[in-house]
């Protein structure tokens, strides 16, 4: 029997405190009542002496001790043939515990309730507590421990950020396996959130691209799930600093208001106004082409930071010739939401990170070093590897556009006439050709003796047969055909394929 089905069954029961009739389970999970009873038998056989699920004739099924079953338990226990979780690695164990603490924060748990089933000693438990404090500290959250109880304390925004960062991956979202064990509720919530994303796109007249759509989806989804778990807490969320500022009445803020109004209606509950601002932070931290701003609206801070980053990367001789102007226009559009993300501590997953590291190892390291200097110079929060990966892609594009300059010698009869005309035309059309000199045909040998860096001789007159290096004769008009021949020849010189 599929583990996934067993997880669904336990997940359904987790959301119901009382007995659930077999017919209801059969209908919700779209299987026969016989399959339900067989699944319950198997789960109970795997889960030890008393069994996880209590079955009563005429009443149905319920979890024997729902509080002792965490979502992590469901996943781990049923992912293996044995309900025994003592085999989990310490990392997996801590993940399960912190997940449970976070999703229901600030609910207090007896330590024995959280750690008891792992059958570990006090020293391992102390190690776990230290590790959990470190993990939570990254999100400005604290793990409190008083009289044998533990719980997580911190701001709602930080709790959600921790949930998003630690437990949500795109695979979960794609497979609808995220947080909410009740499949029907989960799918309904996911569909609702997707509908809100469509609404945002409609209102801002722009598409929200990957990975920002995933981020906003996660934010709204966690908001809903958190409300379902600890709804009463939401009212305590205070307005973040900056809320109510001049941007409050902006178009984006209006969009956020509409979406949060819809969420309120969906949950049939009132949500604090801070939720509008949280969503605003996510939207302004996303690169949405044309939707939220025009290129002319690049703020000075973004300009300076972008320029500084390009300069720092270009300090490396390998990248000093990148077209910084072209790079700037693309990168600045990325940097604007990036700076917002850093300020708002919004993390974006980068699925291509490993590939980027593999393909551009040196460039990635160079960009990473440059971002460290950027952080120091502009007092920014840490730019993590995922963000460095995104930035690296922009530089990689610029590097690919960059071709190694080919040193050329221009020749005409006198070096003063058509070679000068050619010089002007080549300078305007070929940024990757470096004109070393413009000479008379009679002076070629002397100049080549002096300039060994010359890789190609371009002439408007026929050249002596004795020349042993790549040459190209073009018309002084430098026609399109001439330009194409010159480009091909320059490529051959770069690749070492060109001969006389």
């Amino acid at each position: 029997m599929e583990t996934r089905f067993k997880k669904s069954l336990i997940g359904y029961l987790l959301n119901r405190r009382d007995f659930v009739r077999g017919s209801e389970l059969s209908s919700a999970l779209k299987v026969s009542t016989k399959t339900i009873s067989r699944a319950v038998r198997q789960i109970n056989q795997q889960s030890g002496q008393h069994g996880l699920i209590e079955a009563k004739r005429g009443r149905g099924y319920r979890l024997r001790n729902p509080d002792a079953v965490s979502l992590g338990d469901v996943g781990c226990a049923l992912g293996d043939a044995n309900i025994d979780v003592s085999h989990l690695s310490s990392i997996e164990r801590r993940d399960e515990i912190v997940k449970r603490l976070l999703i229901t924060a600030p609910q207090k748990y007896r330590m024995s309730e959280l750690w008891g089933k792992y059958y570990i000693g006090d020293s391992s438990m102390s190690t776990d507590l230290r590790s959990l404090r470190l993990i939570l500290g990254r999100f400005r959250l604290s793990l409190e421990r008083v009289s044998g109880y533990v719980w997580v304390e911190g701001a709602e925004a930080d709790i959600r950020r921790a949930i998003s960062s630690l437990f949500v991956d795109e695979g979960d979202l794609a497979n609808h396996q995220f947080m909410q064990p009740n499949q029907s509720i989960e799918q309904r919530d996911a569909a609702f959130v997707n509908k809100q994303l469509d609404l945002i796109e409609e209102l801002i007249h722009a598409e929200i691209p990957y990975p920002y759509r995933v981020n906003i989806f996660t934010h709204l989804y966690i908001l809903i799930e958190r409300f379902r778990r600890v709804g009463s807490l939401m009212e305590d969320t205070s307005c973040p600093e900056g809320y109510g500022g001049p941007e409050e009445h902006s178009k984006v803020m209006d969009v956020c208001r509409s979406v949060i109004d819809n969420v309120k209606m969906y949950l049939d509950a009132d949500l604090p106004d801070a939720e509008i601002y949280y969503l605003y932070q996510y939207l302004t931290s996303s690169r949405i082409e044309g939707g939220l701003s025009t290129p002319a609206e690049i703020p000075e801070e973004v300009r300076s930071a972008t320029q500084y980053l390009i300069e720092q990367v270009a300090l490396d001789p390998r990248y000093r010739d990148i077209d910084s102007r072209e790079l700037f226009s693309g990168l600045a559009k990325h940097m604007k939401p990036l700076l917002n993300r850093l300020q708002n501590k919004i993390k974006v997953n980068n699925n291509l990170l490993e590939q980027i590291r593999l393909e551009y190892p040196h460039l990635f390291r160079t960009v990473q070093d440059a971002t460290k200097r950027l952080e120091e110079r502009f007092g920014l929060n840490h730019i993590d590897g995922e963000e460095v990966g995104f930035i690296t892609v922009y530089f990689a594009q610029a590097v690919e556009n960059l071709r190694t300059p080919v040193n050329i010698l221009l020749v005409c009869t006198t070096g003063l006439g058509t070679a000068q005309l050619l010089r002007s035309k080549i300078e305007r059309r070929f940024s990757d050709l470096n004109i070393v000199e413009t000479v008379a045909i009679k002076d070629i040998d002397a100049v080549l003796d002096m300039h060994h860096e010359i890789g190609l001789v371009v002439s408007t007159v026929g050249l002596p047969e004795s020349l042993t290096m790549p040459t190209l004769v073009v018309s002084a008009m430098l026609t399109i055909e001439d330009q194409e021949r010159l480009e091909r020849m320059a490529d051959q010189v770069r690749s070492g394929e060109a001969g006389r």
Partner: protein
Amino acid sequence: MRTIMEWEPDLGKASVDAFEFFDWVIGYLSDLGLVKEPGRLRERLVDREAAGSTLVGANLANPHAQLSEISECLIFYIKLCDPILNWDGRHDVDRILVTLLPEKPDGRDLVRLRMLYRRMADEAFMNVLQSGADTDVQQILLTEGK
């Protein structure tokens, strides 16, 4: 640097080829006392054409030579009534910019000449040379590089 312009001059016959045109140019300059060895200049101009087309614009050729028998830099612009057919075997031209340099040109002339050629890469400038009125052509030839 001397600049000369001839607008639709009488070449002695209705249509000429490139070699006949060179003969006319050399005769014209010899009459002005600007060329000491007409034979050598003709040879240089013909050799230059043989080395590669001197076409610099759609209907504009730029035959040129550098030789010791020339005493100063010379720009000679000629607008023809009838085009010279197949100037370089492929293109007709009706405007010709002849450039002659002495073996050791004056430094200021070199700068002017270089400027003139560089400016020829400008579309607007080239349009005047290719199809401009006589006053416009005269204007840019006389002022360019000064």
